[in-house]
């Protein structure tokens, strides 16, 4: 038996697989052009945990750097697919009435596969899905481990800068949003029955190599 949440997640996965199946097979495989992209920027994250012991408080990542490496492959005209490694080291703070306190750090590592639609004038949009893992020392909410790989969904809007040096470097600005559900074995032990949705937003500057002109 699947509960509603599991069924919903399975539905999203099935929808993604169907979309990928429709698009990811290039009409002419020989026209595919591979490029490598590196992006760096800053990421905001919503709270990982909202809890209340006497008074309410949040466990929230700090504003943090984000580093992404992508391998992109041109598909049919106007479309490309990519695999992206996303690494984001971050501090962790407990925010409560009367202050905000350092409680450690972690690194969020995500791998996503995505489809990108290229519009005119250097604009493109990407939708992707993948998995995210929290790497942290075994203390606090991670004292019983991180809970493994968490499904992640992401959307992004990208704009290629219309300047000559920027074109040479395939320079792009990207606004990226992703969402996943955060829960760890220690939180389950504490009594949490489901994960909290964590929304992350990043502003990135990307440069690329290879692939010729943008498809």
């Amino acid at each position, binding site marked *: 038996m699947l509960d509603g949440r599991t069924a*919903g997640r399975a539905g*999203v996965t099935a929808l993604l697989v169907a979309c990928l199946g429709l698009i990811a097979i290039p009409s002419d495989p020989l026209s595919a052009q591979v490029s490598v992209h590196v992006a760096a920027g800053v990421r905001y994250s919503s709270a990982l945990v909202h809890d209340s*012991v006497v008074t309410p408080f949040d466990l929230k990542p700090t504003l943090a750097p984000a580093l992404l490496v992508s391998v992109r492959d041109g598909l049919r005209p106007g479309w490309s697919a990519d695999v992206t490694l996303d690494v984001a080291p971050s501090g962790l703070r407990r925010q409560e009435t009367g202050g905000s306190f350092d409680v450690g750090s972690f690194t969020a590592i995500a791998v996503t596969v995505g489809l990108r639609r290229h519009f005119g004038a250097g604009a493109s949009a990407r939708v992707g899905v993948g998995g995210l893992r929290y790497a942290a020392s075994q203390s606090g909410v991670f004292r019983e481990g991180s809970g493994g790989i968490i499904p992640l969904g992401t959307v992004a809007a990208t704009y290629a800068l219309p300047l000559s040096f920027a074109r040479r470097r395939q320079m792009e600005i990207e606004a990226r949003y992703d969402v996943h559900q955060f829960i760890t074995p220690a939180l389950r032990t504490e009594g949490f029955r489901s994960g909290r949705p964590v929304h992350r937003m990043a502003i990135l500057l990307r440069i690329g190599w290879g692939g010729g002109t943008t498809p």
Partner: protein
Amino acid sequence: MTPRCAAALAGALVLGACNDPAIPSRLGVNPFADTVIIAADTTVTLFRWPATRLPVRFWADPRGNMRFLVERAVAVWQYQFLYGELRGVVVSDSTAADVLVRWRDSVPPDVPPDTIPAPNSCGGITTFDYDSSGLALAGPVHISLTVLTGGSPASPGQLQACMRRVSIHELGHSLGLLRHSLFDGDIMYGSPIADYPSVYDRRTVEMLYHSQPTVQPPPQ
């Protein structure tokens, strides 16, 4: 077809992750976090180390395996907290410590603990020095561990097992768990027989570290 598909996927991702989980109920907190000074004004004394004073600095008597016992007890208590409410460190300079842990008299042998319990083979005492106002500590917290000789004789291994329990128990007092639990499954029971803090110990210290203290720590 394809853009619609992508848009539907993006929408599903966002809508599928919008529910906040319920905050768990935390039943079973023992009322031993505070100690009540029976005075005319019925003042409640509640002490904990504030976040601004972390890490709490423990000094361990260099004789025997006291440093091991203190480091172990600090780690055990730190493990109880989900949200980094407590951090402790063992320091080598007693003048820079918040909590001093000493042997009261003889030093027990450092041997592997015996699993057969002899609960009353050792003891401990934790002492707080309040300033004249009664609203702040005047100096470091003192803990002494002692080998008890009055009861039936314990093996060195039983004595070591007892010291491990009692060191956690006494450090619990130094963190602000000033009273004893009435339940023998708790590490804060008067004569502890549990090896580690129970869920009730954990819930209680968790609640203590989210409560407003009425007693301030000693000056640094």
